[in-house]
């Protein structure tokens, strides 16, 4: 649906987009995730047609967008500030883009009523736009864009101004809306949880560059680099030394854990002098009880801190012969005892617990 190829963009001497290439599929919920200042909004505005680019191409629905102004593009945008027209009523806001279609009054009213119903604002048509709450403004912005039946809906951090409860509500509402309409959604967010729960695929951006593009599960399970890994939840980063590569399996010596055979990810590239480290998620290791031996690998360690959180217990441990603190999280079950600080324990893990991560230069 959207093909971005080799896009470069500078603001003066600032390099805002670096060789951005990605294909967004028709009907998918696609997210651009990254820290503030990473170029997400710039990329979204490039798709919408508000920003010119230095080189590269934007193709939407098979048509090149070079020289096509925003009002001629098959995209609509929900702005971060919502950009509700303050001098118009809710209904006038929603009907704004219909003018060019010359539908007549009754048809327009019908469509506005339908659109307001879809976003849960039935009966709000006559309200003045400036008298709305943040959540309602956002719904108006959605209705105003969706009424035009765009091929692509672009959303710039639409939920970041809402309080937590409303935000979670809107997350699932947006997801349902996207599924039922079948429109391609491109969402910009800096909230990894939001990106993981809502999207079909996520592009992780750092400093104007797409660092990794994959499904939420793949991003969580097999992040390609240390930066991406640390962006999604907790990840223990350990020093690693590559001993050998055979048949897509990398033999690696990991600090504290010893030798592991890690399947090579699609992005990884072990030649060319890149530096690597190993990552292990806290929930993929187990603090073993006495006599328990359910894991192919075990290493002795000492507990340095215990944090009990009801459902889970977080242990800080140090492996023998290593100074790096490692977090292990354990689901609390009826028969598992909570360990104490200073206790010597065995940590169980397996090859698949570890991933090889590219360290940024």
């Amino acid at each position, binding site marked *: 649906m959207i093909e971005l190829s080799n896009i470069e963009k500078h603001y003066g001497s600032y390099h805002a987009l670096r060789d951005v290439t990605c294909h967004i599929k028709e009907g998918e919920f696609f997210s651009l995730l990254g820290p503030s200042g990473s170029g997400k909004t710039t990329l979204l505005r490039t798709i919408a047609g508000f920003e010119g680019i230095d080189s590269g191409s934007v193709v939407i629905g098979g048509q090149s967008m070079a020289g096509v102004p925003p009002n001629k593009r098959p995209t609509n945008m929900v702005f971060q500030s919502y*950009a509700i027209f*303050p001098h118009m009523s809710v209904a006038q806001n929603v009907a704004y883009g219909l003018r060019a279609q010359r539908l007549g009054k009754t048809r327009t009213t019908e469509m506005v009523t339908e659109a307001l119903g879809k976003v849960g604002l039935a009966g709000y048509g006559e309200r003045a736009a400036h008298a709305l709450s943040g959540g309602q403004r956002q719904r108006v912005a959605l209705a105003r864009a969706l009424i035009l039946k765009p091929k692509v809906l672009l959303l710039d951090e639409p939920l970041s101004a809402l309080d937590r409860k409303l935000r979670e509500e809107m997350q699932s509402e947006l997801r349902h809306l996207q599924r039922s309409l079948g429109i391609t959604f491109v969402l910009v967010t800096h909230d990894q949880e939001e990106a993981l729960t809502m999207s079909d695929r996520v592009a992780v951006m750092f400093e104007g560059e797409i660092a990794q593009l994959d499904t939420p599960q793949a991003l969580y399970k097999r992040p390609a680099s240390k930066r991406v890994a640390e962006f999604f939840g907790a990840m223990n980063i350990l020093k690693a030394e590559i001993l050998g590569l055979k048949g897509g399996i990398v033999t690696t010596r990991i600090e504290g854990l010893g030798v592991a055979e890690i399947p090579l990810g699609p992005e990884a590239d072990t030649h060319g002098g890149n530096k690597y480290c190993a990552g292990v998620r806290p929930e993929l290791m187990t603090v073993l009880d006495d006599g328990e031996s359910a894991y192919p690998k075990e290493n002795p360690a000492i507990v340095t801190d215990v944090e009990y959180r009801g459902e889970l217990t977080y242990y800080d441990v140090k492996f023998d012969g290593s100074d790096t603190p490692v977090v292990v999280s354990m689901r609390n079950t009826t028969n598992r005892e909570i360990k104490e600080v200073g206790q010597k324990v065995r940590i169980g893990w397996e090859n698949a617990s570890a991933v090889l991560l590219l360290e940024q230069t």
Partner: protein
Amino acid sequence: MSKRILTTFMIVFTLFLYAPTLLLPIFAFNDSSIIAFPLSGFTFEWFYSLTEADELRGAALNSLIIAAASSVLATCLALLATSATVRYKFPGKGLMIGVIMVPMFLPEIIIGVSLLTVVLLAGLKLSIYTIIMGHTLICTPFAIAILRSSFQQLDPSLEEASLDLGETRFDTFRRITLPLIMPGVTSSLLIAFTISLDEFVIAFFLSGTEPTLPVYIWSQLRFPQRIPSVMALGTLLLLLSIGLLTLSEVLRRRSVRRLGQHDTSGAW
């Protein structure tokens, strides 16, 4: 102690500013052709006498035409200039703004003399059109100052949203930009109108045989017996100016309320 000094200062200062103005209405209603205390009685005579002066009506009409034309021209020019300078960066922008704003600080006598020279060199006849030119020149910087703040308060994403929803740039200006900066446009029109209405120096240099009100008033001051009529006329002008400025402020506040914005600007 210092508070009392400040209060006294404020009172004296206010008197100094406004007391002379108050003399106008006082003598406009005084039943004597000599401007002096004590007052001798109350009369509407001087106001009646205004209705009989044909020359005065001509001057008043000239003033109204000039004020209307130059306020509209100045506001249109300012709209073009500000919509370009607030939204876009281009080389020479600072210099351009500077050049446009200069007439605000130049002595009017200089502007008057230079314009007169230009008009004569160009072989034009002095008329209300030359005054309109001059007044447009001095009103434009004020109009720009007012409209700049309107444009700066306008969220650029509103215009982008309109484009995004399929409107052209022109329709975006018509449906979004203009309605939202309307309070500024009205202020600009009213203030430019007021400035033009009581401007004397430039009008005097450029008027030829078609005087404006201030020029007419000045010419009447040579005849002592007409001074009370001038006082009456001055009173009317004073009321009109106060009325216009009040109207502009009322309109501005109402639109701020209507749009639910915060009132961040000052008296304008």
